[in-house]
């Protein structure tokens, strides 16, 4: 290589974090050599042109999302996309894939156990109080056995890579994990923009995800002998993930419905169509448990379907994911997943958890209050990065405020060490250069009947603000395409 590009000229190396692309001595890891060489050949102007082209591609496809905050009511934004793909070598991925399937098997067995025999609670492996104080525990599910005992069909597990170079599980999202539509759109954008680089690399495809999702949903239909009809239930266009709901329905070739499009008669769920009622067998719902059935949960819900829980109990519909799965994605319960893996599978966890302190445990609480500076505090039942407090950024008064909040309701908070999320070269527009930014990885695991599937790669989320650790799109994060090599 003779030509040196300005794009990496001032790229800082940092011993505190694991850089996915560069070693501490500045050399490039072997699996990044090709793509780095390609970028290095570009001038700043060339790269800017590619970058604009990629952005336009998203805008033209209408790939936007809405953010809820005090000032703005669901304004549409483009999800920032970074052209430098994250690359995971095949052997690393193989291990992650095994670890994710192992984790999901254990989570499903756990949820089934909680709603039936409760062996793990009786054996005091997981504290019962933790389960029954969870907002997501669903008494309804005690009298319902989902088809094939699968509760959590779609799971989004978030992984990070620590400064030791190892992957850790940050959390599992078992309710309605979103982001998969970006994985597919990112890949489309990369193929269009970096067609040469992509062609030269051997990257595992992600395009079969919608077909895998449909097959997963069909494998859990209420009547095994028939091909079930599937629908995606959305809260509607004002939901922040509406694009994804419509995208998935469209790519699977199934109906996208709102609660008002459905009704229940004689414990079957029907969709209204101009040709009369059409029976629905499997619902991939993207609404929360509390809104599913106004006769059972929140009576003011306009999003759900009156009577759907009765139909579910009668075995005439499959709800994906099952209600009550959120009991296992409570961040305090999440810390027991390694114990679940040992208990149900008799195996050692392949991917470890990020160490977690449960504020409701007295000794943990003491540690948390004494080591606030080194910790990240999170409410147990919020997602999207909401409510996360990174304590070393706080003033003394603010710190005291956080302490009081925790002490007021210890069950509701966990703390984790400020894990050094790995960094990845990311193009920073106003600097005209690549800089390291923190990333994580949202993975997507499907559990159908006898067909576990992990989407190769997933969504690499990047915190675009310098030094920021919060990667969620609702908090100013962007994303990267994720390449798993063949």
């Amino acid at each position, binding site marked *: 290589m003779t030509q040196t590009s300005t794009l990496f000229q001032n790229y800082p190396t940092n011993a505190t974090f694991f850089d996915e692309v560069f070693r501490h001595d500045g050399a490039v890891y072997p699996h990044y050599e090709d793509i780095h060489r390609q970028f290095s050949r570009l001038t700043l102007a060339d790269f800017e042109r590619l970058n604009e082209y990629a952005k336009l591609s998203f805008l033209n496809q209408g790939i936007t999302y809405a953010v809820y905050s005090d000032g703005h009511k669901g304004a549409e934004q483009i999800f920032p996309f970074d052209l430098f793909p994250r690359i995971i070598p095949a052997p690393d991925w193989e291990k992650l894939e095994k670890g994710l399937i192992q984790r999901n098997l254990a989570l499903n067995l756990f949820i089934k156990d909680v709603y039936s025999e409760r062996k793990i609670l009786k054996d005091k492996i997981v504290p019962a109080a933790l389960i029954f104080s969870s907002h997501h525990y669903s008494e309804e599910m005690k009298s319902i056995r989902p088809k094939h005992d699968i509760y959590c069909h779609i799971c989004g597990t978030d992984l990070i890579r620590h400064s030791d170079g190892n992957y850790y599980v940050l959390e599992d999202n078992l309710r309605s994990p979103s982001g998969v539509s970006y994985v597919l759109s990112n890949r489309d954008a990369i193929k269009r923009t970096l067609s040469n680089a992509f062609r030269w690399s051997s990257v595992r495809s992600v395009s079969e995800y919608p077909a895998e999702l449909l097959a997963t949903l069909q494998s859990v239909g209420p009547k095994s002998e028939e091909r079930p009809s599937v629908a995606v239930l959305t809260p509607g266009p004002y939901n922040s993930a509406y694009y994804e709901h419509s995208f998935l329905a469209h790519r699977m070739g199934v109906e996208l419905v709102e609660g008002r499009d459905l009704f229940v008669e004689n414990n079957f769920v029907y969709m209204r169509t101009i040709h009369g009622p059409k029976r629905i067998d499997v619902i991939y719902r993207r609404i929360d448990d509390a809104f599913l059935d106004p006769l059972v949960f929140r009576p003011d819900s306009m999003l759900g379907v009156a009577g759907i829980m*009765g139909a579910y109990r009668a075995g005439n519909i499959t709800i994906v994911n099952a209600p009550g799965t959120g009991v296992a994605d409570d961040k305090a319960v999440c810390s027991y997943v390694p114990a679940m893996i040992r208990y149900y599978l008799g195996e050692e966890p392949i991917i470890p958890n990020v160490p977690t302190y449960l504020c409701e445990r007295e000794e943990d609480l003491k540690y948390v209050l004494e080591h606030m500076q080194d910790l990240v505090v999170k409410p147990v039942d919020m997602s999207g990065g909401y409510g996360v407090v990174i304590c070393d950024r706080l003033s003394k008064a603010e710190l005291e405020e956080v302490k009081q909040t925790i002490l007021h309701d210890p069950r509701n908070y966990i703390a984790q060490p400020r894990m050094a999320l790995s960094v990845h070269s990311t193009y920073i527009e106003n600097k005209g250069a690549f800089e390291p930014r923190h990333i994580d990885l949202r993975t997507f695991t499907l559990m159908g009947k006898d067909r576990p599937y992990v989407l190769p790669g997933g969504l690499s989320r990047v915190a675009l603000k310098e030094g920021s650790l919060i990667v969620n799109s609702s908090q100013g994060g962007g994303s990267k395409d994720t390449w798993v090599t063949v």
Partner: protein
Amino acid sequence: MTDYVIEYRTLTEYEKPVKQGAYEFLIMPCENETQKVKHFRLLHSMRGEPFTARNKYGFLTHHFHIYTDSFEYFSLNLLAQVAKNPPPLNVFSNLSAAEENAVLEDMEFQMDQQSFLQVTPLCLLGPGDFPAELLRLDGENVGSYLLRLNAGIHRLLQYVPGITDAGTQAKTALEMGKGVCQDYAHVMIGILRPQGIPARYVSGYLNLSDDRSDSQLHAWVEALIPQVGWRGFDPANHLQENDHFIKIAHGRDYLDCQPIKGVLTTEGAHKTSYEVLVRNSMDYNWFLQEQQQQQQQ
């Protein structure tokens, strides 16, 4: 054995037409060791027939889901003939209080009975909300305690119809010192569960043994006594459950046993009236004859 005919009538009138509605009724007497539904008839003002579903504790609900017709009133009349045998009254186990405690403190038992050990908001009581003498004494058998508590709660509250509503918490009723059967039941549950004695809310019909009709269903409590099983207590009337009690359903609190739930699309107000009658079936010969004729056809 006693034969009862139970009548449940409700009429709701809407100011503006209802375009869509879904109703769930939990009013049918359940079937168990002491009671059996011999016949029933459901008369209503809706086009089409209701369908039945089971709720989370297995009790039968009737659903009316109306999507095509608009309506301005909804009337429903359930007539059911129920054969009732006297339920067992014995509340005393052969165990010592310490042995009973061992059962109640067993993790396996607690996990299996968790639904009826966890306090819900309607039943939530603090230690200062009721006299400490209503707590179980050291060495007191669960059965004796339940009889004592049943009497104690009866004395604690004054029965005043209409003073509380469906959302009234046990704590509020205790502060007022007044309530209806539902409040008595919530108070008893709120005292029992934190002491590790499983307790469930029961809705049903009570034969008042005279010709009075009632505007509400009755509510009482079932508590689980080690070795003995579930026994019913009616703190509002200071009675143990007997063959005048006809059970519909049980749950964690009133919210699991609401007789009517509705989700409607309408503007404007509505007015609902209810009437509940329990009679000895001798007074309903016409109903029985009609049922028999139908069966013969």
